């Protein structure tokens, strides 16, 4: 029995290939049933995002499992030939598979390091699998663990902190000037994808209002309707500027739309309340001289870009810490995974029973005073007999059922019913001590 993963991602396959594999949410159920219908596959989950398609499965035989999953992927979703696909696939098993999953969930494998969406996508994939009952004890545990590892990475490292996109960087700077943005008004001059994105980010940070100005009033109306704001006529934008704390400019105009003397007037009207200008247009639309005015802060596209690059470097540094956390978690998880083997479980269960028997025997012998050898042996025999009789059926069932479909559940139940965590860890520790050798 093994955990395996087969997939392709933005690192191995171009978009032309990836797009063939994307599975819409309403088709996910069918895909999962199809996957699980293969007798080689005991449990399965499909993760499908725009950057990756991955199938994680629990299989009896690793090699056959790889082939089965590959076949599933190629046959079900591809219009591409097997030969051109083959180099795009990556395959992982056992602890490599865990490492890959943990890294993906922690966003270490994402196109933008530390981006938060992937964790949500993994949760969705997991929910779908649970809904269609294609997971069992192992994958449930693996995915729960992946999610908790991702959360740990997020809280213990700063991988998700600080903006790595221009529009986020603008929001972050605004926060450094104004603190909470809930009382602040934004003015958007012009339109364009980046301006729209920034407007959405500001909206997401709860700004009081957003006004839209455009040379064409219809376009302003449209944007205001789309994003929930107030349209303003182009002639009126200077008046609106005095009311706004954040002004985002992105027009196609070849000259300065906002001039220094206008801004001086605006600041006087605002009674020195700071104002933050963001100029993401090329050529620039705001006179760079305004940055010399008191209480005026101006950032152009290059300024924002530089701040983004510094933050990306920071994230890469944090990723190293995240890798350490992941290694640590894999070790912990592997211990649990190994315990799903029947032999150590049986040894642990016997060990636990023996431990209890010996402890109780010691206690009673202490109370009974001196006993003859025969009496002692009788007591030993009695207690052993009770323990063996009690354990006989559970052990037999365990041995029989371990290879059945319920096997993993049975093992997991035994582990929890008899609290065998520490017993199972013991041989591991002894082994480690042995490999270290005696102290010299």
């Amino acid at each position: 029995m093994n955990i395996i993963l087969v997939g392709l991602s933005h690192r191995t396959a171009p978009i032309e290939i990836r797009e063939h594999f994307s599975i819409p949410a309403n088709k996910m159920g069918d895909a999962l049933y199809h996957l699980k219908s293969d007798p080689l596959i005991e449990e399965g989950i499909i993760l499908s995002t725009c950057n990756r398609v991955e199938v994680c499965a629990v299989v009896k035989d690793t090699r056959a499992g790889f082939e089965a999953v590959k076949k599933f992927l190629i046959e079900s979703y591809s219009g591409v030939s097997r030969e051109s696909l083959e180099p795009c696939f990556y395959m992982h098993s056992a602890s490599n598979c865990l490492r890959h999953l943990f890294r993906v969930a922690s966003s270490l494998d994402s196109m933008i390091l530390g981006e938060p969406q992937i964790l949500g996508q993994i949760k969705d994939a997991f929910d779908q699998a649970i809904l269609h009952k294609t997971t069992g004890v192992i994958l449930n545990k693996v995915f729960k663990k992946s999610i908790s590892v991702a959360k740990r990475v997020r809280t213990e490292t700063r991988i998700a902190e600080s903006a790595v996109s221009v529009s986020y960087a603008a929001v972050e700077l605004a926060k450094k000037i104004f603190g909470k943005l809930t009382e602040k008004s934004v003015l958007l001059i012009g339109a364009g994808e980046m301006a729209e994105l920034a407007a959405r980010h500001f909206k997401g940070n709860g700004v009081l209002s957003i006004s839209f100005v455009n040379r064409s009033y219809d376009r302003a109306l449209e944007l205001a309707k789309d994003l929930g704001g107030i349209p303003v006529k182009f002639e009126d934008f200077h008046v609106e500027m005095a009311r706004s704390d954040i002004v985002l400019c992105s027009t196609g105009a070849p000259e300065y739309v906002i001039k220094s003397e206008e801004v001086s007037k605006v600041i006087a009207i605002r009674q020195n309340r700071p104002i933050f200008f963001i100029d993401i247009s090329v050529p620039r639309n705001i006179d760079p001289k305004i940055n010399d005015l008191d209480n005026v802060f101006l950032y152009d596209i290059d300024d924002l870009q530089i701040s983004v690059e510094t933050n990306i470097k920071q994230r890469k540094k944090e990723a190293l810490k995240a890798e350490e956390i992941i290694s640590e978690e894999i070790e912990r998880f592997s211990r649990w995974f190994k315990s799903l083997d029947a032999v150590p479980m049986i040894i642990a269960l016997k060990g636990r029973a023996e431990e209890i028997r010996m402890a109780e025997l010691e206690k009673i012998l202490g109370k009974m005073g001196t006993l003859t050898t025969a009496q002692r042996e009788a007591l030993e025999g009695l207690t052993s007999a009770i323990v063996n009789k009690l354990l006989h059926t559970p052990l037999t069932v365990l041995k029989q059922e371990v290879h059945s479909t319920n096997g993993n559940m049975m093992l997991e139940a035994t582990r929890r019913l008899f609290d065998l965590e520490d017993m199972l860890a013991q041989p591991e520790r002894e082994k480690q001590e042995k490999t270290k050798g005696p102290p010299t």
Partner: protein
Amino acid sequence: MMLNVFFFKATLACYFLGTAFFLFNLWDRKGERDAQGFSFWSQRLAISVTGTGFVTHTIALILQLKISGFVPLTNLHEAISFFSWAIVLAFFWVEIKYRISILGSFILPLAFLFLMSATALPNEVPSLDPTLGNIWLGIHTTLSVLGIVAFAIAFIAGVMYLLQERFLKSKQFSSLYYKLPPLDLLDQWNKKSILLGFPLLTLGIISGAFRAQYSLGSFWAADNAKQVLTLGTWFFYLVVLHGRITIGWRAKKAANLAIIGFVGVLFIFITLA
């Protein structure tokens, strides 16, 4: 060595260590993305050392009170010591409320320097009877010192404002940039501190006049430089508040004014010494 002197020295040592740790935090790059909270050992250490100092300081002040049997603010040494106690108290208040512990890197050096300067001053406790005039003296000094503490906080907020403003304008983001709070919050601190300090100083001046009436027989002694300077300070902050409310002297201007005001107060302290 008297017990109060022992506690005073212990406080001095603690504030010195606190200053050292807080300044270390200021330049430590580790905390640069973590302006909130104090998750790092040096931050915790700084706060616990300062906390210990605050406790010994409180004990020293209580002992002093027992010895003189009176509000321990009879001479400049005691007034300065009380000032530094109150400013550390203000730090803990902000720390608990806002969790912006970078404030410690600014307040602790100030508290330490003041306490150091207090040791340089003679600490002879005059034996005062709790007469009406002396009760007014106690009220007068306590209120005035608390008012000055508020102005000191406004001063620190002003310094932090100018630093952060410089970072934002020059687009050079040092580790300090990430640790400093937003400009708007600093401007709010500035405003609130002066709003709090001004009435305290006003009441301090009024009680001072009562004290003069009881002990000197006159509310006002025009030849007294201290009175003139204090009134000057009071007038300065009155203008600052007025300017803020009516003509919008906020943000950078307010930060500059808070700095000028407190430097003026310091100047008075020094001339009095």
